[in-house]
């Protein structure tokens, strides 16, 4: 059987340690810290005061502007602070609401809607009110993605999960396939698309077999080669349809919308169960945490609590550790264990630092062949470090998807992605966001 894929990429050790671990529901944490910016776009505006009682599912942050999202209280309790804390994802202080839990869940549910009879607009409104964002990691507000600027005819569900260690999408597909299918039906209705594909890497053969059987005739299951970054939006589209998203464009430019499997589950939970996005599935894994597993965890739960209570602490005898939001390829290392779980965190990976000493590029061209965007990472790195941003932009600086395949494959440990990420920021700032 020939498996579909894209050109380039790498194959890091898969380390899917938790692929057989059923998702368990975590106990409720005593305290949560909820960022007002857990999505791409403008931060939400806090609408609660210190001392105020809040219910589970109650809106505590309202969107500002078009690209923004609602934020809800993940637990029932009292607001103890509204202040700015450092967000590792955004690299700056962001407004956050701290809530101490006072009792078990006392729900405030979303407005009821009959998904079979409701109009597209009514459904879209509930998706927006549920605060749903892309759960694969990019955290783009889903209601915005559901109103694409151009008509779309194809929906692609992302079940690739190409990051090492992470298994939550895999488990969700195995355990909650009926609910995901319901989410897909609702999404189809909102988007008005005809064809639906789901792309799954071949290392999740059990999920492929299950969904092919259960979803026959409804969703086209596409087995994909196990290769990183198979789950990157552009590479996934390319693997399944053979099409390329135009440079600087959106999938909707070629009539496609991509959604993560976990997002589909969140849609179902919002529309059918009337629950806003206050909980998500995540993988806790890595060699430096005692117990690995898959968990349903409330958004805003501090990572320290997750590691202590769900992972039962760090492995003894380790002095230095990397705690990553996400997997080891694109995950963001946290500088404080007080950092809470965000809507987009599909996993917490706790690993040791691998020794890396950058030496001279020997022009082996491994990065050129690893780059899934067909860029020349060695040259982008060089131009970025020499601050020749315009030249870097001319050879595709802004096309880089920051997947890290170049640095992964580099025998000289050149930090391409690091310098490219910085150069992108500086270039955008210098050009005022204009092309």
């Amino acid at each position, binding site marked *: 059987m020939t498996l579909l894929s894209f050109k380039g990429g*790498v194959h*890091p050790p898969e380390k899917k340690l938790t692929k057989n671990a059923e998702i368990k529901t975590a106990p409720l944490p005593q305290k949560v810290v909820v960022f007002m910016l857990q999505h791409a776009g403008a931060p939400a505006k806090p609408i609660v005061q210190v001392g105020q009682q809040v219910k589970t599912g109650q809106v505590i942050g309202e969107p500002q502007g078009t690209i923004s999202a609602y934020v809800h209280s993940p637990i029932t309790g009292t607001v103890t602070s509204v202040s700015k804390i450092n967000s590792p994802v955004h690299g700056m202080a962001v407004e956050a609401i701290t809530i101490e839990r006072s009792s078990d869940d006392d729900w405030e549910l979303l407005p009821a809607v009959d998904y079979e009879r409701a109009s597209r607009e009514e459904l879209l409104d509930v998706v927006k009110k549920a605060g749903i964002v892309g759960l694969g990691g990019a955290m783009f507000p889903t209601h915005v993605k559901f109103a694409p600027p151009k008509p779309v005819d194809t929906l692609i569900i992302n079940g690739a999960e190409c990051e*090492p260690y992470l298994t939550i999408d895999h488990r969700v597909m195995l355990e909650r396939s009926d609910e995901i299918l319901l989410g897909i039906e609702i999404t189809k209705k909102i988007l008005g698309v005809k064809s639906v594909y789901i792309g799954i890497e071949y290392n999740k053969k059990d999920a492929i077999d299950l969904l092919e059987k259960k979803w026959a005739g409804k969703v086209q299951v596409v087995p994909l080669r196990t290769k990183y970054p198979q789950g990157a939006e*552009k590479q996934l589209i*390319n693997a399944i349809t053979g099409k*390329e998203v*135009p*440079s*600087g*464009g959106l999938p909707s430019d070629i009539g496609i919308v991509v959604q993560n499997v976990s997002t589909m589950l969140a849609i179902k939970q919002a529309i059918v169960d009337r629950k806003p996005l206050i909980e998500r599935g995540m993988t806790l894994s890595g060699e430096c945490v005692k117990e690995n597993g898959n968990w349903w965890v409330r958004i805003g739960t501090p990572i320290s609590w997750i590691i202590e209570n769900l992972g039962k602490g*760090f492995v003894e005898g*380790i*002095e*230095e*550790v*990397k705690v*990553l939001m996400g997997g*080891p*390829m*694109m995950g*963001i*290392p*946290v*500088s*404080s*264990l007080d950092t809470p779980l965000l809507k987009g965190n599909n996993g917490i*990976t706790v*690993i040791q*630092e*691998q020794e*890396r000493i950058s*030496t*001279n590029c*020997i*022009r*082996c*061209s*491994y990065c*050129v062949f690893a780059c899934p*965007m*067909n*860029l*020349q990472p*060695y*040259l982008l790195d060089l131009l970025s470090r020499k601050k020749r941003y315009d030249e870097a932009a001319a*050879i*595709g600086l802004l*096309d880089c998807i*920051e997947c*890290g395949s170049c*640095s*992964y*494959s580099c*025998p*000289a*440990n050149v*930090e391409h*992605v*690091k310098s490219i*990420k910085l150069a992108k920021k500086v270039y955008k700032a210098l050009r005022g966001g204009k092309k």
Partner: protein
Amino acid sequence: MKLLTTSAPHVRTQDSTRKIMIDVLIALIPAVIASTYFFGLYALILAIIGVVSAELVELFIMRVLKKDKEFVPNGSAAVTGLLLALNVSVATPWWVLLIGVFFAIAIVKHVFGGLGQNTFNPALAGRVFLLVSFPSAMTTWYSPINKFFGVYPADIQTTATPLAVLKLQGFESAKSFSYIDLFFGNRGGSLGETSIILLLLGFSYLVVRGRIKVMVPASYIGSVLLFSWIFYMVDPSKYGSPLFHVLTGGLMLGALFMATDMVTSPMTIKGQAIFGVGCGLLTMVIRYFGGYPEGVSLSIIIMNALVPLIDRYTQPRIFGRRVA
């Protein structure tokens, strides 16, 4: 518990520059064995002198540059030294090789910025330097003695290489070299260049290990076959058959191990193809019309100089962009 926040990706390949260089050294072992068999003990001594002196010169340079504290030997100098040793005649005095190694490492490599920064292949530049400085030692060839660790008798006769015979006497005389002998390496020539089969053996190891820009030798050897075939059709008695051209001289050693040097060859497949064809064309022009019977070193050096230009004009189409 200390939290580390170094940049992504947080897992890296187990590969390293040193592992690549060690693979290249392993791939050259068959050629060293061949040279020891065909040209005796002194060939092995030259190979060892090349490897050891190259590493020592590099350490010396690092000390002079005050970089020796953080410098970890990665074997790249050893590769240069070994390649240079395989590129000289058995008639070369050991101190001539030392001068060549010093020139290759100190001037060609480190003056340009060290590992990865040099425009020219250090071993080839070293060879060309020796060729113009010690023309007699570098172009005196002996017949093989076909005995491991053998020693040449004092009254040994020199011999002509197949390409020299072709150049001076035409293809009819050069036919005295059988293709079998040429393939296994039973002929006069540079120490490491003669045994085609053992060079191919080492090369296949590099291919299996993914250590080589395969397009370079493919287009190089392919273009040599093509150009020599065209000339062979025009005048078979003068120009020699395509197979003869591929099996003789330094073509195989050059195409498989010198032109493919990572630092001094292009980064894209298209660029590598252009580079290889350029090498092939120049090699044949020198062989047919130049003053030297052999042109592999010079043509690769000339193409090395063009690599930045080739890289610039062979950039691949970026994903999602139309062909510019």
